[in-house]
């Protein structure tokens, strides 16, 4: 636990010192062409496939799943969507994935470097889909990738991370739906924070 904490601290230091590949969070989204989400009002969860997350601590972890669902429901409710059982217009689905990543520092052959320790961390991706319940077409997908080293082991920290991640993803949902959509941000602006 302490090891992972200090590793995270080291990671943050490295990230702030060098603009390396280890961004703390990257958020992006996709809106299908011609979709106007204003014409959708009700939603239901697509039955959760107890899929593998790549992390046995999170596989079939109902406490984790419920936290994600609650965070998504809050975001949807604040945008006027209503949860329903009968005949929903939207189906909501999420997928969480964790994998170990490694960032190696490339050196010139004559160099040796004390700061170039490879950076190894648990990277997590949370992806949220809004699907047309009738046609089963993907309407919108938002996702966030971040370093969660040491976070799963700390329940309170994980819960905060889930809430924040879901909120950041939904910031990219075009809203309000009516009126002209704001021009899409260029990819360079797309959420490196």
């Amino acid at each position: 636990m302490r090891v992972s904490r200090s590793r995270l601290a080291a990671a943050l230091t490295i990230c702030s010192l060098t603009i390396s590949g280890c961004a703390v969070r990257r958020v992006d989204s996709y809106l299908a062409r011609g979709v106007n989400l204003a014409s959708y009002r009700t939603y239901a969860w697509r039955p959760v496939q107890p899929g593998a997350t790549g992390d046995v601590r999170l596989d079939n972890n109902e406490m984790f799943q419920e936290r994600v669902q609650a965070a998504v429901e809050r975001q949807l409710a604040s945008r006027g969507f209503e949860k329903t059982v009968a005949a929903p217009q939207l189906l909501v689905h999420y997928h969480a994935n964790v994998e170990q990543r490694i960032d190696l520092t490339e050196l010139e052959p004559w160099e040796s470097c004390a700061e170039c320790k490879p950076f190894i961390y648990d990277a997590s991706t949370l992806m949220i889909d809004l699907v047309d319940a009738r046609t089963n077409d993907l309407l919108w997908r938002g996702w966030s990738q971040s370093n969660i080293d040491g976070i799963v082991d700390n329940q309170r920290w994980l819960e905060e991370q889930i809430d924040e991640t879901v909120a950041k993803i939904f910031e990219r949902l075009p809203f309000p739906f009516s009126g002209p959509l704001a021009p899409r941000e260029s990819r360079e602006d797309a959420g490196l924070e």
Partner: protein
Amino acid sequence: MSRHSYTAALAIGLAAIAAGCAVTSMNVSSHVRRGLDIGQYSTYAWAPADALPTGDPRLDQNPYFQDYVQGAVEKQLASRGMLASRAGTPDLLLHYHASIDTRIDVSRSEREYERCHSSDCSSWVERYEAGTLVIDVVDTRANLLIWRGWAQDSVEAFENRDRMRQKVTEAVRRMMATFPRAGSDARPPAHGGEQP
């Protein structure tokens, strides 16, 4: 340094040597359902040991491993006054899951040099086999997971049965230390994890 602390330091050093090269720290933590009254539960049973393919012959069909895990858990639960259910529906159902994954870490040997020389610093990276033991506790009436504990460590030691037993016992003891006690509401410690 006083004689006392010198002895203590020596003891720790010897213990580290006794533990062999694997002085890796065991990572232990848990998640608990919020707002839980643990006092409502008094009996438990093990879920049928069906879905336990670990993908590793050291753990699959290994009666010792199963015996060590169950024994250690039962001992911890007994110390909290929980009883193994003899008949009827138990309050809690226990389930454990063990797995072994190949993970990477900054290698111990390179760490000492604090410098990397190869062109991509890849000599810093080493693979190891990480074992994870997950214990789930399910409320049988509500059919809800109320607690999940886990311990992760290198499984080098598992070739030796005594070492495996030590590891499993330590894992379960530290994991169960995070299991909420009756009377306290189910709130995880402020900084997660348990204090060793």
